[in-house]
């Protein structure tokens, strides 16, 4: 818990921790009231400690727990009424057993008000964690109160104190003591209370079914405990009614007390659970803090806030398809904005989450951070990719420029130099009378001629001058001319960017070299089309096919094509020839 409150953004209401001195004040007050109530409850049971210590102890435990939980609960936003109702239930609980004193007002008090703690308990069960009761719940509580108090008053006025196990001298409002009438009234009142108990069961189940999102998590233990307590109370009442008033075994009360313990415990759990929900933010943060797409954030929000109806809509990209639920007006809507205030997304959630405003806001805030992170990351990735692409093109172009330069240097330097020497050698040969020397010089001349031819091929291989000068069409024709099989070249005279021409040229050379080496083809075609802003190149043969697209130097040309954002496809079904297709953008 400590870790999560450090990591998670501080929610406004849920975690609105008071200042330290306030916290101390609350702690002291809680302790003081609990001790005072505990002392009062211990005293009030007085003689019961001697006759039935277990029951007295159980009662005290239930009371103290109710009081303590109520005090804790009163500090929850909107719950202080419920908190005080639990405190009242706790204190009244022990007062139920004040008749152990056998003193004057105790007997009649317990007879009439002996179940008042149940009223407060029912109130708390029906209300928490809402800020008010629904109309029918209020009606129920009023009717229950009237029935319970009115019925018990009727029982009192038709009875004598000794019937209740009190001394005959005790004050008693015996207006018309009548055993028969009393028994009938007793029966009717208790049956009615049993029905009220059953109705409460129904109301509690209805509450559970009607709650959504986090409410359900918080409320489930309370409702379960409440159901158990109601069942126990009804069972206890049945036993009381069936046995004689004096003969009710105290064990029944002990069992009921034990079950009742569950109610404050459940409230206590709920209080803790509401606080622990902050932990979800930590999980949410861990889940999406690295940046996540809108779908992942939506999923994380739904599971964190336990709201499967929650919707997270991307406002940065217009999506007209998601109109949202029809009753959107009632729903909780929160916008996620950039630093500048531009909305980038909107969260539409169950209104029940309004009770967990702090948690909800923290979750939305975390989601916002994740979405903004994702946007920044995507932007950075796009820029990086663009940089890489640009640098790939630069590298390719630099390589081409370098090849052109080497070819030019060879042509203008070494080749011309050697040619000059060859011309001089020819002159020398012509001027040499010595037959032997002429033969030797002629051999040098022949060698020089071979070197010149090799040099020409070398320069052509590095970068064919015809490509720069005549373009792709002329260069491809010249490639075709050197091959040992007929190659039909169809290419427009249109010129495109040098890098594109060179790439297409080298791809064609590589593909044609493969045709010669591996395809066993009888002819091939090279087709170039320049349309709009792209160049299509196709090299097809009628050979054996089945060429492995990864081998034969094709990986190298694939890289070249990719560098220009082009695509290269190789179709080579066995027996059906090979087709290499390249598409390069050249806009």
């Amino acid at each position, binding site marked *: 818990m400590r870790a999560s409150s450090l990591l998670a953004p501080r929610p406004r209401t849920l975690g609105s921790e008071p200042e330290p001195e306030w916290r101390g004040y609350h702690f002291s007050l809680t302790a003081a009231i609990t001790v005072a109530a505990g002392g009062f409850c211990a005293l009030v049971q007085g003689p019961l400690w001697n006759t039935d210590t277990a029951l007295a102890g159980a009662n005290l435990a239930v009371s103290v727990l109710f009081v303590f939980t109520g005090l804790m609960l009163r500090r929850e936003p909107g719950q202080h009424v419920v908190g005080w109702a639990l405190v009242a239930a706790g204190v009244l609980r022990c007062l139920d057993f004040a008749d152990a004193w056998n003193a004057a007002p105790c007997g009649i008090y317990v007879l009439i008000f002996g179940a008042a703690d149940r009223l407060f308990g029912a109130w708390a069960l029906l209300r928490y964690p809402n800020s008010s009761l629904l109309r029918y719940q209020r009606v129920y509580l009023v009717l229950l109160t009237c029935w319970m108090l009115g019925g018990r008053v009727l029982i009192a006025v038709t009875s004598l104190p000794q019937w209740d196990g009190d001394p005959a001298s005790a004050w008693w409002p015996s207006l018309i003591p009548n055993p028969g009438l009393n028994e009938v009234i007793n029966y009717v009142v208790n049956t009615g209370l049993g029905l009220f108990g059953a109705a409460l069961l129904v109301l509690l189940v209805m509450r559970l079914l009607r709650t959504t999102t986090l409410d359900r998590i918080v409320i489930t233990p309370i409702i379960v405990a409440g159901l158990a307590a109601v069942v126990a109370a009804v069972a206890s009442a049945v036993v009381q009614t069936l046995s004689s008033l004096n003969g009710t075994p105290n064990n029944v009360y002990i069992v009921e007390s034990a079950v009742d313990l569950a109610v404050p415990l459940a409230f206590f759990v709920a209080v803790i659970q509401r606080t622990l929900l902050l932990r979800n933010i930590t999980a949410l943060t861990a889940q999406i803090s690295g940046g996540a797409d809108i779908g992942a954030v939506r999923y994380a929000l739904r599971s964190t806030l336990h709201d499967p109806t929650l919707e997270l809509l991307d406002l940065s990209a217009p999506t007209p398809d998601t109109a949202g639920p029809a009753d959107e007006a009632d729903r909780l809507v929160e916008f996620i904005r950039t630093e500048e205030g531009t909305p980038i997304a909107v969260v539409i959630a169950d209104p029940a989450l309004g009770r967990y405003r702090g948690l909800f806001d923290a979750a939305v805030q975390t989601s916002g951070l994740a979405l903004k992170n994702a946007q920044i990351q995507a932007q950075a990735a796009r820029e990086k990719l663009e940089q890489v692409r640009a640098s790939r093109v630069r590298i390719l172009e630099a390589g081409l420029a370098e090849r052109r330069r080497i070819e030019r240097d060879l*042509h*203008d330097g070494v080749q011309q130099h050697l040619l000059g*020497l060859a011309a*001089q050698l020819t*002159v020398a040969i012509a001027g040499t009378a010595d037959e032997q020397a002429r033969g030797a010089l002629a051999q040098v001349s022949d060698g020089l001629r071979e070197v010149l031819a090799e040099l020409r091929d070398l320069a052509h291989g590095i970068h064919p001058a*015809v490509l720069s000068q005549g373009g792709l*069409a*002329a260069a491809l024709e010249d490639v075709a001319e*050197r091959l040992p099989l007929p190659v039909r070249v169809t290419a427009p005279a249109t010129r495109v960017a040098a890098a594109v021409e060179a790439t297409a040229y080298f791809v064609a050379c590589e593909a044609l070299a493969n045709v010669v080496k591996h395809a066993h083809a009888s002819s091939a075609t090279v087709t170039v089309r320049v349309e709009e802003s792209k160049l299509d190149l196709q090299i097809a043969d009628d050979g054996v096919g089945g060429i492995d697209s990864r081998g034969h130097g094709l990986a190298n040309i694939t890289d070249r094509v990719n560098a220009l954002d082009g695509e290269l496809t190789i179709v080579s079904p066995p027996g059906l020839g090979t087709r290499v297709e390249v598409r390069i953008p050249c806009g």
Partner: protein
Amino acid sequence: MRLAIAEDSGLFRSSLTMLLQASGVEVTASAASGPELLEAIGTGAPDAVIVDIRMPPTFTDEGINTAAELRRLYPHVGVLVLSTYAETSYASQLLETVHTGVGYLLKDNVTDARTLMDSLARVAAGETVIDPTIVRRLLERNRRPSKIDMLNDRERAVLGHMAEGRSNMGIAKDLFLSPRTVEAHVTSIFVKLGLDQAETDNNRVRAVLAFLRSAGAGSLCCAHLTGLI
């Protein structure tokens, strides 16, 4: 023979000049670029001109432009374009630009004074010369189907020699045939290629062009020659 030279490489130009002079040629003008050459020639038109294909300012195929300009200014001066490029496309481009009295020769031929002088004499005489290396490669290779396929081996050999710029007499000597037989082959070639019998001179060039075009260079087509392919 009076000759002018345009060549941007100083070393090669001077060596070439030396070689030509040793072969009895009078070099009347030499320059490092086409425009300079045209200026240097002025009114004293030579018998033939040697032009480097790659010269300033473009360093691409400036020589072909210069050849065209020379032909325009001096209709009867032979133009021999020297090149280090063995690509057919340059030869085709040249022949499409300048139709007669023109030649495309690799610079490697400076090792062979006889071929060089022969070629100069032929372009000066208005014939068309293509470098033997290129011609040989075209004869040897597997071509795509064209009208050239209708020629028999003997006719193809004659056509190859025509491309190198040989006269009927020269071809007869090289192939050990009688001049009459060569003439018959030439006529047969013209017929098979669908050339007009009347224009013998132009037909020689057209036949050579058809031969070059059969090697490829289809993209560099001229409307009036497409019928040959």
